[in-house]
């Protein structure tokens, strides 16, 4: 028998992402995506510490194997739950739904989802987030936005980390920013050093505005 259909391959993930979206209603939910070592966890630790008095936050940590990152995040006093993907290269919305069962979302303003370090696969899977945040660091190639266009196209913000190392590396900030904005015209780009603290205020400003917009139901 011949059966003509038109069905999106990732429809099951998208459906589950809708369920997640219902569960996290009113909570700014951010999906942090970067390559391994760009500084997602360091940026998170710093953000959780600096904004700890202002917002109630929670974290879902995706990792291939260890719970190292979840322990680092929990050390800041913020509620964190670990998803061990057992080698899987990305998180999907079903994993997020399960993780939500282990989080107390009462009064939470921001839910951070730290995806598995990988610029390709995680981008395809909607987790029910409000925004993907692409994190890039200056120790990587400045052609990353060109090479991985989907993430920079879909992201609602980009953080360029490790700017304190700019004097020591060949990274053309202007070129990377230009290419990212070619893919995504109004993309806000925050140049920060999560270890030194430079430039974080602008990133926090974006978070504050996003929380406000979320609570206003936008």
């Amino acid at each position: 028998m011949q059966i003509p259909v038109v069905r999106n391959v990732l429809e099951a993930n998208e459906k589950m992402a809708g369920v997640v979206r219902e569960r996290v209603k009113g909570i700014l939910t951010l999906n942090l995506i970067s390559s391994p070592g760009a500084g997602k966890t360091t940026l998170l630790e710093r953000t959780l510490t600096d904004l700890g008095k202002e917002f109630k936050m929670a974290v879902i940590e995706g990792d291939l194997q260890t719970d190292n990152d979840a322990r680092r995040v929990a050390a800041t006093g913020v509620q964190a739950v670990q998803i061990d993907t057992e080698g899987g290269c990305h998180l999907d919305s079903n994993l997020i739904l399960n993780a939500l069962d282990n989080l107390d979302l009462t009064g939470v303003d921001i839910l951070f989802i730290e995806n598995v370090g990988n610029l390709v696969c995680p981008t395809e899977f909607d987790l029910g987030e409000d925004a993907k945040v692409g994190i890039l660091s200056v120790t990587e190639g400045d052609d990353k936005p060109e090479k991985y266009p989907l993430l920079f196209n879909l992201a609602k913000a980009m953080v360029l980390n490790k700017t304190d190392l700019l004097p020591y590396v060949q990274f053309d900030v202007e070129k990377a920013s230009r290419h990212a904005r070619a893919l995504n015209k109004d993309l806000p780009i925050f140049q920060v050093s999560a270890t030194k603290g430079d430039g974080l205020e602008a990133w926090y400003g974006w978070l504050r505005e996003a929380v406000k917009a979320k609570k206003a139901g936008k």
Partner: protein
Amino acid sequence: MHELAIAENMLKIAEEELARHGCTKLTLLRVEVGALSGVVCESLAFGFECLVKGTLHEGCTLDIVPIPLKLRCGACGLVFDGPGGIGGIAGAGGMGELSPCPGCGEVLGHEVLQGREMRVVWLEGE
């Protein structure tokens, strides 16, 4: 890397459609995969083969139809074909969305008209 998960989703959709039409065995599955979908076709085919091996669907033909990239220039509005090939992250052998417009040479700001597809479009079963 994520092709196995994508193959699982394809098979799940196929099994739902088979059941709806009173069939149990999948003999052919046709999927469209866009040049910018981030899918490596060889990995997808391999993942699918692994999934059906030892099941009722073993031997099923997987027909992957590549959908080439089509862009509208961000500067002059000309519609043109992106670099050929499929299976690369940004379209094999090219820069994907940042390809130079044959009309005016602009590389930035193109609109993707076609090339992000990833869908099941046809199946055959018995």
